[in-house]
């Protein structure tokens, strides 16, 4: 592939995926995938259904152990982590990788605010000294909780959910649930945010708002975003860098203009997508 030559293993890399391979029994879900994601950039992973996009996320966030490959995260403040060697929850706890799910996974019976507070569990746990300071009602814990609420308020405001902060998350309209899940992932203070089809099921206006939200997160928070998306208008509009997967293999990698005009992509993917877009409009 000519696209393979586009990989740069520059020093500003946030995430270096090298030779990632994931096999489920006889099925090769990801086949020798390598790419790089950078800070201050939105890196999109696109490809038809079943191409292996979600599987890449599941490998990154520790839900699957890759069959082969190295996932190197260069945390801007903390140093290097090899994600493939870390236990699932520690990837979020220590390496600060946040994610959302293709099928929204909120805590449906808990309120919107509680969802955001739980995301700050580890910091609060430390402040409460394993619940002791909390049980005794020490100031140390109360201050920490207040800070957590302030952070939650900030993100509630950003995703337009302040008025519904005390609603049960499961009762929110679909679009609100998607945005809440993003806000919740942001509350762990990630350096890399992985979003699995965040625009799925949104109407065009909500989709537009989502674009703006993602761009502002990229610019203000100084983090890297990894985005799985089907909607070409979203992908082409906000991505800095696109990786195209097909049947687990990378078929193209570059900026939107490059990918849009890559003949391999047009043959394998955009041909189908154009039909899809026609149907959407």
């Amino acid at each position, binding site marked *: 592939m000519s696209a393979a030559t586009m990989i740069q293993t520059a020093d500003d890399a946030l995430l270096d995926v090298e030779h990632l391979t994931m096999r489920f029994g006889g099925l090769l879900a990801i086949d020798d995938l390598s790419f790089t994601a950078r800070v201050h950039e939105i890196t999109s992973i696109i490809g038809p259904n079943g191409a292996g996009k979600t599987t890449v996320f599941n490998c990154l966030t520790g839900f699957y152990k890759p069959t082969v490959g190295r996932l190197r995260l260069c945390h801007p403040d903390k140093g290097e982590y090899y994600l493939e060697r870390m236990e699932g929850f520690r990837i979020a706890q220590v390496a600060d990788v946040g994610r959302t799910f293709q099928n929204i996974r909120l805590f*449906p019976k*808990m*309120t919107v605010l509680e969802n955001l507070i739980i*995301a700050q*569990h580890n910091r609060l746990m430390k402040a*409460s000294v394993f619940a002791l300071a909390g049980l005794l009602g020490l100031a140390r814990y109360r201050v920490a909780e207040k800070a957590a609420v302030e952070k939650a308020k900030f993100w509630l405001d950003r995703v337009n959910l302040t*008025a519904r902060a005390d609603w049960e998350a499961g*009762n929110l309209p679909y679009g609100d649930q998607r945005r809440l899940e993003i806000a*919740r992932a942001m509350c762990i203070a990630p350096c890399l945010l992985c979003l699995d089809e965040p625009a799925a099921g949104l109407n065009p206006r909500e989709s537009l708002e989502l674009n703006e939200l993602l761009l502002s997160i990229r610019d203000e928070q100084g983090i890297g975003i990894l985005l799985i998306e089907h909607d070409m208008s979203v992908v082409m509009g906000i991505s800095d860098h696109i990786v195209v997967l097909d049947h687990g293999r990378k078929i193209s990698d570059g900026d939107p203009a490059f990918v849009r005009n890559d003949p391999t992509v047009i043959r394998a993917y955009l041909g189908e997508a154009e039909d899809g877009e026609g149907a959407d409009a």
Partner: protein
Amino acid sequence: MSEMTTSHKAASASAVSVIARDTLLTAVVALVLAVPFIGLKSDSVGTALTLVTRWPLMLAMVGAVAAGRVLVSLWRLRSAAKAQRATAHTAAGDAKASLAAWGNSHMKAIGFAGFALAVVLPFLPFSNRYVVDIGTTFLIYVMLGWGLNIVVGLAGLLDLGYVAFYAVGAYTYALISTQAGWSFWVCLPLAGTFAAMFGLMLGFPVLRLRGDYLAIVTLGFGEIIRVILMNWVDFTKGPDGVSGIPRPSFFGAPFSRSAPEGVTTFSDLLGIEYSSMHRVVFLYFLILALAAITNLFTLRMRKLPTGRAWEALREDEIACRSLGINPTNVKLSAFALGAMFAGFAGAFFATRQGFVSPESFTFMESAIILAIVVLGGMGSQLGVVLAAFALVVLPEWFREFEQYRMFLFGAAMVAIMVVKPTGVMGHREPTIRLHPVGKSKKPEAAR
């Protein structure tokens, strides 16, 4: 107009046919079951075994089942119509104040009133030894319900072997006090600690299990503990049980008519006449205090990161992991703390009875405690109290119906699950609010 009536008629006609079909099906199933269970009865006349038939009784029973099915169908129909009307004008639906909603908005007041009532109960004019004894039993189950509520109601880990920790607490006190002579007040924290350690012991192997599989393993764990108590005769005295367990003292002052040299009895200490009621009332207040501590602890814990993580784990374990929450710690802390309170209750049980044997810790006890939690509404502290009252105190009052106890038990379970699947008080109060209740706009307030 006429069109509407015809469509209405058609709808009701189809409803009638559905009900008729359901009723017939139910009656057939009931009949199949009733023939061997009720219709035919073996009776021994002298040494011979004869078969007695009871056809009329059987038909009456089948008729009763069919009638019950009709009632359930009608009730379903009515509530479906009601739900439809409610969605038609949501405001009315929102304003509908259920018992749970009312209970939640007055939770503090209800809690204080209940506690005050519990405190004055032994001094009320009608209170005799019998009433205080029932009150003590009731409070034991309330405490166990609250303890199990941590595991099942908050953390969502279905535990069918909870009685094992109750047994560990009871035997810890029974054995240490009879063998080493340590006092109740030293043994109480030990009983809690041991039970918590057993909670961890159960927790480790079941970390990866959920739902049905977890239920089966915890059920097995409960039985293992009982079988060990039964068979390790050298240590636990087996089926004979441990007797002569010291009764609690009032911080050193025993509840007895006379005491050995150098020890003041409780009645002498207060300069009042000796009465056997003193100990009963003291035990009552002891369990009241223990239960109150359990409740306060849980209420406080719910608002702390650990407690919130329990509930988050119940809601979605995968989401928890994606937020950097260690599910192992969350599960183990729930098992250990839930078990700890069962351990305290067990030590109390041992000192109250003065005797423990494996018979007190059968699966039936686990089932009752779990029923209290589920019927009350998973996670609701007030629900546990109401359910414990229904399952422990009411059967005590209606002793004449002893043989129907299990039947009523099952009927109550089914009824609650049909009428209100989330339990009597199945409504969750948020642990933190951004908008205080009074000020928030209508939709949120009515939730």
